[in-house]
């Protein structure tokens, strides 16, 4: 199991003791002591695909921007177009370096007329906050690091809405995917309830005060409410396999400070028609020059599991790329992966080899996302604005 060495003290979410009481297997992830699994990754993964799963994602960071120039500041530092957001709406986006490569990917929420919340990755909290603060100094806008203020709980799966409606007073079925509302949860008022997630399913993420008592109480009530839907507490193991099946990128894997937007295939979240944003000139040049590698999905044809950083070879056994994420996919029951390869090897059906313990094991390029949630018949879940295409 991979763990990341760090010289600083391991950080804990407000729910750390609760996870340990539940018997979770804990691992270090990006400097955080986090549950990797409770009952088992496969069971947790299937709970999210068929019912509901509950995740502590409090390690994620939060940056609030507010003031007269808040929109201009967000537009300058992010690649998607925040001017399209209504109050109560969110969008997938990214912070870019001037080279057009990734500082991090983020979800931008428009909290108010002049107020935005960026939800960022755990391992990049300090870097992101400094980046946002330093690059918005010219704007009349305050930048606050709220990362330690929230316990963030994700409730994911086809039954997530039913579970959530037991805990809230509001009507959540009218909240569309990638929109949010404020409501009462477990007696706590004015809680941010966002219909977002990182699993390829419908679901919600709630942001509650981070004191351990409140956090533990809400966690318990969510688990209780989920019992009738077969909801399970889920760890980072299932979070990773779920997001991989849905082809959602992970910072440090599919996106990184050496990878640009076109390579990562996130074109539709990058609005080049915006007059200006950090990274735009470099991306114009990169688009004109053409990409040297592209992110594609593979499925193993022969026996073997592609793992992160394994080498990818062409059929003549020349090294042509590498695996960014690879795993057994519990819902699909296949061995899948995401790989960077030259564009000429990115066509669906292209045969590739993954080097596993010195052997070239056959794989082929397949369409992504590997998994797509079944279409809802209701009119409320129409437009899906997440990076899983």
């Amino acid at each position, binding site marked *: *199991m*991979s763990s990341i060495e760090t010289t600083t003290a391991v950080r804990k979410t407000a729910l750390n003791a609760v996870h340990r009481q539940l018997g979770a*297997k804990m691992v270090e992830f990006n400097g955080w002591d986090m549950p*990797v*699994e409770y009952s*088992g*990754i*496969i069971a947790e993964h299937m709970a999210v695909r068929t019912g509901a799963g509950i995740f502590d994602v409090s390690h994620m960071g939060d940056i609030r921007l507010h003031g007269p120039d808040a929109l201009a500041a967000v537009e300058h530092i992010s690649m998607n177009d925040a001017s399209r957001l209504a109050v109560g709406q969110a969008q997938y986006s990214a912070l870019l370096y001037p080279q057009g490569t990734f500082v991090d990917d983020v979800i931008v929420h428009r909290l108010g007329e002049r107020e935005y919340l960026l939800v960022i990755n755990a391992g990049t909290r300090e870097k992101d906050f400094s980046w946002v603060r330093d690059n918005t100094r010219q704007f009349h806008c305050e930048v606050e690091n709220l990362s330690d203020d929230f316990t963030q709980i994700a409730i994911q799966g086809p039954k997530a809405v039913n579970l959530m409606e037991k805990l809230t007073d509001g009507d959540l079925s009218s909240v569309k995917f990638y929109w949010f509302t404020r409501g009462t949860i477990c007696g706590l008022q004015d809680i941010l309830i966002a219909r977002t997630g990182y699993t390829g399913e419908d679901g919600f993420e709630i942001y509650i005060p981070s004191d351990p008592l409140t956090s533990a109480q809400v966690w318990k009530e969510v688990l209780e409410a989920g019992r009738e839907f077969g909801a399970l507490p889920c760890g980072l*193991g299932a979070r990773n*396999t779920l997001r991989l099946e849905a082809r959602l990128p992970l910072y440090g894997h599919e996106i990184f400070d050496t990878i640009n937007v076109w390579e990562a295939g996130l074109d539709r979240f990058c609005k080049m028609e915006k007059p200006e944003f950090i990274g735009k000139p470099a991306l114009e040049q990169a688009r004109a020059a053409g990409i040297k590698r592209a992110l594609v999905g593979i499925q193993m044809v022969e*026996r*073997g*599991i592609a*793992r992160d950083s394994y080498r990818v070879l062409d059929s003549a056994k020349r090294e042509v790329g590498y695996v960014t994420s690879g*795993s*057994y996919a*519990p819902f699909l029951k296949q*061995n899948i992966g995401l790989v960077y390869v030259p564009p000429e090897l990115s066509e669906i059906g292209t045969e590739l080899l993954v080097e596993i*313990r010195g052997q070239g094991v056959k794989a082929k390029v397949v369409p992504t996302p590997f998994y797509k949630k079944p279409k809802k018949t209701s009119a409320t879940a129409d437009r899906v604005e997440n990076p899983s295409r």
Partner: protein
Amino acid sequence: MSYPVEYKYTKEHEWIKPDGAIGITNYAQESLGDIVFVDLPKVGAELTAGKTFGSVESVKAVSDLYAPVSGTVTEINSELATAPEKINTDAHGAWMLKIRLKDTGELKALLSAADYERFISEETGS
């Protein structure tokens, strides 16, 4: 979970039965989690004590398998190719392969069930 006294154990968490059957311990399957793949050599392959002979993979992790003793592979448990989860449900019954031992004296260097249980309790710090 008890550790059969007739088995011998390694610090890399394999067991070997007197008949030459080799598997991984319950402690190993628990720390790996859901096992989804086992990579084993073919019948006739030579194993060398202390050297890797294959690997076992869970959803999350890849773990090398180390030969407890030297010998020649005589049989492979083909059931594990399609049902690797048997290792999770019955670690001490789900043998991976059988070998003909080169030197039964090598067994003396391995841990007894009691030694192994002491070893893992030290490793987990409990």
